[in-house]
């Protein structure tokens, strides 16, 4: 009987456990998590569950009973302290647990920020259920919120808090919001939409220090602006959790290095999800991608390798973000794009931005356009050189475009 240990109880780890259960009915499967909760959907933490009354049961990945029914042992409050790869054991709960195959799915922790004059416990982050609960409690007596970081977490949180009627300021160090992931047109579009909903933006600036006030802080920026806020939330990315792997000589660089099967350089040890720097054959390079879809894809790839099922290359990466009534779905990676083609109607908030490189569609951002998103997924996967004038012709539907391209 194969003993499989999974370190980390979130999207990647849980998906691997249940996939493996289907593939290897008699395997012994244990998941170790340092959280006290059973695994839950993380995306709603900055969206729906911030806006509404909700409890953990509403967002659980699987009901607790399903772990028992599938003979998957889930260890809560059980951080793994070290791995001994020579003897194939991990150490947790002051005991050793043996493995035949080990999957590291430790994810990441929010990149922290120190602000001169602010006590560290007064800086809030949103990664775990407990973080979100702490924020919700503080919001009860708060009116004004400063969000540091204009990425997805920051902007989704800004939208959720505007819906709740809070005064929201977002400060971004770069010269535009979402600059790591979207083109300038999309950044402008999202900033304008947030501004129309009442969010105040400070771009290309940073907080330098703060003074405590009766309720919250008075903060000063590098350019000399002053902001008053009852609550400070930081969303400036995550740092992959790689300590356990690094300690035993697993190669790490921006995450745990793995090949296309999710194997590390040490036998029988795999890494999946936000913590892994995965070699993508499609892109000819290693990439660390933070998304639910990436986590479940790698869980599938790694499970198939362990159970001896055939390898199926991961589908092109895709992501989603909900802000107000805007549903954004992104597919592909826009690294090195040369041109943008917009289809649809920006003023009506239903449009898609296609990223072009070498006469191919390499990525797309679809706002309130699920059909164009699904079509883009197929187009990008086919990776074919195409006549771009066809895509520019707005009188053609996306299905007609695909037909003309023989896709």
């Amino acid at each position: 009987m194969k003993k499989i240990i999974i370190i980390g109880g979130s999207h990647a780890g849980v998906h691997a456990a249940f996939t493996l259960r289907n593939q290897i009915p008699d395997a012994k499967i244990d998941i170790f998590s340092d959280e006290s909760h059973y695994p839950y959907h993380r995306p709603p933490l900055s969206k729906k569950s911030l806006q509404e009354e909700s409890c953990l049961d509403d967002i659980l990945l699987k009901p607790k009973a399903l772990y028992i029914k599938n003979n998957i042992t889930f260890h809560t409050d059980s951080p793994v302290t070290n791995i001994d790869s020579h003897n194939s054991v991990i150490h947790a709960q002051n005991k050793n647990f043996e493995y035949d195959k080990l999957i590291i799915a430790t994810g990441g922790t929010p990149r922290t920020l120190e602000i001169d004059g602010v006590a560290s416990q007064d800086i809030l982050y949103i990664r775990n259920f407990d973080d979100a609960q702490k924020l919700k409690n503080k919001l009860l007596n708060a009116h004004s919120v400063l969000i540091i970081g204009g990425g997805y977490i920051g902007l989704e949180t800004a939208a959720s808090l505007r819906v709740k009627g809070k005064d929201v300021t977002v400060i971004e160090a770069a010269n535009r919001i979402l600059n790591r992931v979207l083109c300038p047109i999309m950044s402008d579009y999202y900033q304008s939409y947030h501004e129309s909903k009442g969010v105040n933006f400070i771009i290309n600036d940073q907080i330098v220090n703060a003074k405590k006030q009766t309720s919250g802080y008075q903060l000063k920026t590098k350019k000399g602006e002053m902001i008053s806020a009852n609550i400070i939330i930081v969303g400036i990315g995550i740092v992959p959790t790689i300590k356990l792997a690094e300690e035993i000589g697993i190669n790490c660089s921006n995450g745990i290095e793995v090949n296309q099967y999710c194997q590390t350089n040490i036998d029988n040890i795999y890494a999946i999800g936000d913590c892994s720097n995965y070699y993508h054959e499609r892109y000819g390079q290693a990439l660390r991608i933070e998304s639910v879809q990436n986590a479940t894809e790698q869980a599938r790839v790694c499970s198939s390798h362990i159970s001896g099922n055939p390898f199926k290359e991961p589908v092109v990466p895709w992501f989603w973000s909900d802000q107000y009534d805007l549903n954004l779905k992104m597919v592909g990676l826009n690294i090195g794009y040369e041109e943008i083609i917009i289809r649809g109607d920006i003023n009506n908030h239903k449009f898609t931005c296609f990223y072009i490189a070498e006469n191919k569609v390499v990525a797309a951002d679809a706002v309130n356009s699920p059909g164009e998103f699904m079509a883009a997924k197929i187009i990008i996967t086919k990776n074919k050189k195409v006549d771009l004038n066809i895509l520019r012709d707005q009188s053609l539907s996306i299905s007609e475009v695909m037909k003309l391209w023989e896709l």
Partner: protein
Amino acid sequence: MGIITFIDINGQSKETIPTNEVNLMQLAVNNNILGIDAECGGCCSCATCHVVINNKLDIIPKAQGDELELLNFVPNKEDNSRLSCQVLIDETLNDLIVEVKSA
């Protein structure tokens, strides 16, 4: 509440009994039905919960709006394709047969 049968991606059939699930996607996830990935958690974003329902057509409405837009580009789409996260469960679904399709 009666029985709802899923035919999973490998053709295996499995009978389930809803307890407090709101939609068919949740019922499938809670019963570990193979082929329902439900990556987006049920917000009609991912089309990884594609099913075909060929019985009880009189009470199962056809897909529309965003759901239909997503389904139009899903491989193996059939006339009676639905995203299971958009099919609400009530007692009229007793004896329903739900065929899981790949996303």
